[in-house]
């Protein structure tokens, strides 16, 4: 902590302490006085959509927020790849300094034991299927698209560590970019059915809580995911509607995004 020595450091620490104590004392007032507000309304309507109310919140009540949130990680991936060297542009008329070279990482996999090498591929396959399980069961249990993407790309990273350049999971440039585009584009376009039939973008026409969508749409998007919910008040036939589909789209997008980040960091970026 060389940076905090001297008079400046002492002043900085005092200022931070004052800010911190002020912030903390205001939080003391807030403790126990939180107003539930809109969350309680969401919770009271939970049994009409999907049992996992967080999934409902993420993809139905605030579905459009989540679209932007999904776009955040897409942007994060594209920008980090741009920093590494993908898609650097220069003015044709006035070229500036050349961009820095992006070199691939060097792997030293000789030290790994044989058992790890033998079990690497099965572990990657099992992680893949675990990720797929998480994304398909998200409307009923915890987890969702983002988690699926993170698990899948963790498998990719694991395989890269075990096998180095000779990675058994060969996410190519085109596959990663394509799956990311398909994910975010699919999420965006899943708003269209609701928009065209009810006028509301991303209306969950499968669940149709408010009864404003045509019944045929409810049948198409709702029936494949209909669930029976046994509660104290009786059995509810709830339908998460398009939530499972959006989940898959989100998972694709996250696989594309984090996969692109890993790809760019591990292999650098060379143009063909």
């Amino acid at each position, binding site marked *: 902590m060389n940076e905090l020595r001297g008079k400046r450091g002492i002043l900085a620490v005092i200022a931070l302490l004052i800010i*911190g104590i002020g912030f*903390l004392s205001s939080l003391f007032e807030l403790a126990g006085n939180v107003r539930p507000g809109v969350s309680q309304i969401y919770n009271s309507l939970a049994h009409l959509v999907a049992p996992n109310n967080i999934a409902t919140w993420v993809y139905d009540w605030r579905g459009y927020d989540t679209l932007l949130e999904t776009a955040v990680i897409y942007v994060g991936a594209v920008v980090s790849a741009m920093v590494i060297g993908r898609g650097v542009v220069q003015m044709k008329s006035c070229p500036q300094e050349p961009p820095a070279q992006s070199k691939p990482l060097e792997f030293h996999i000789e030290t790994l034991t044989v058992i790890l090498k033998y079990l690497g591929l099965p572990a990657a396959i099992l992680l893949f299927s675990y990720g797929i399980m998480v994304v398909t069961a998200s409307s009923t249990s915890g987890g969702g698209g983002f988690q699926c993407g993170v698990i899948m790309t963790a498998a990719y990273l694991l395989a890269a560590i075990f096998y180095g350049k000779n990675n058994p999971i060969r996410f190519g440039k085109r596959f990663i970019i394509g799956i990311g585009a398909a994910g975010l584009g699919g999420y965006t376009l899943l708003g269209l059915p609701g928009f065209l039939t009810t006028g509301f973008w991303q209306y969950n026409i499968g669940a149709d809580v408010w009864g404003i969508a045509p019944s045929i749409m409810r049948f198409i998007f709702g029936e494949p995911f209909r669930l029976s919910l046994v509660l104290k008040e009786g059995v509810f036939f709830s339908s998460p509607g398009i939530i499972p589909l959006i989940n898959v789209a989100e998972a694709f997008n996250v696989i594309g995004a984090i996969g692109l980040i890993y790809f760019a960091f591990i292999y650098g970026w060379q143009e063909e």
Partner: protein
Amino acid sequence: MIEVTIQLLGFIAAALLLIIGIAGMVFLDNIIKKIIAFTLLSDGVNILLVAIGYIEGGVVPILLPGMSTVEFTTHAALVFPVGIVLTNIVIGVSTTAILVALAIMLYRRYGTLKASVVLKGERR
């Protein structure tokens, strides 16, 4: 006398993490250390959000068989603040990725990770 609740403890943890994170981001010189400080800051925000969504004696907002809807409405954790945590995690991931990528490229150019050297102003 202030009653010590789990919510209050969460707030205290969050505030400590936030202050450590901000201090690290502002005062530390090493770019990687700054990025680590940012992850602390981001986790502090997460804990703050979770603590705001906390309900005394509450349940996870997932309907389990045999629950009553009225009970669920009053006892489930507040779904809005808890849901925002997901967003904050995603934003944290993307910001960290960009910062790390920039740190890599600037390290290749200047051969050091000291912010005071790398970010020194150039005469234009």
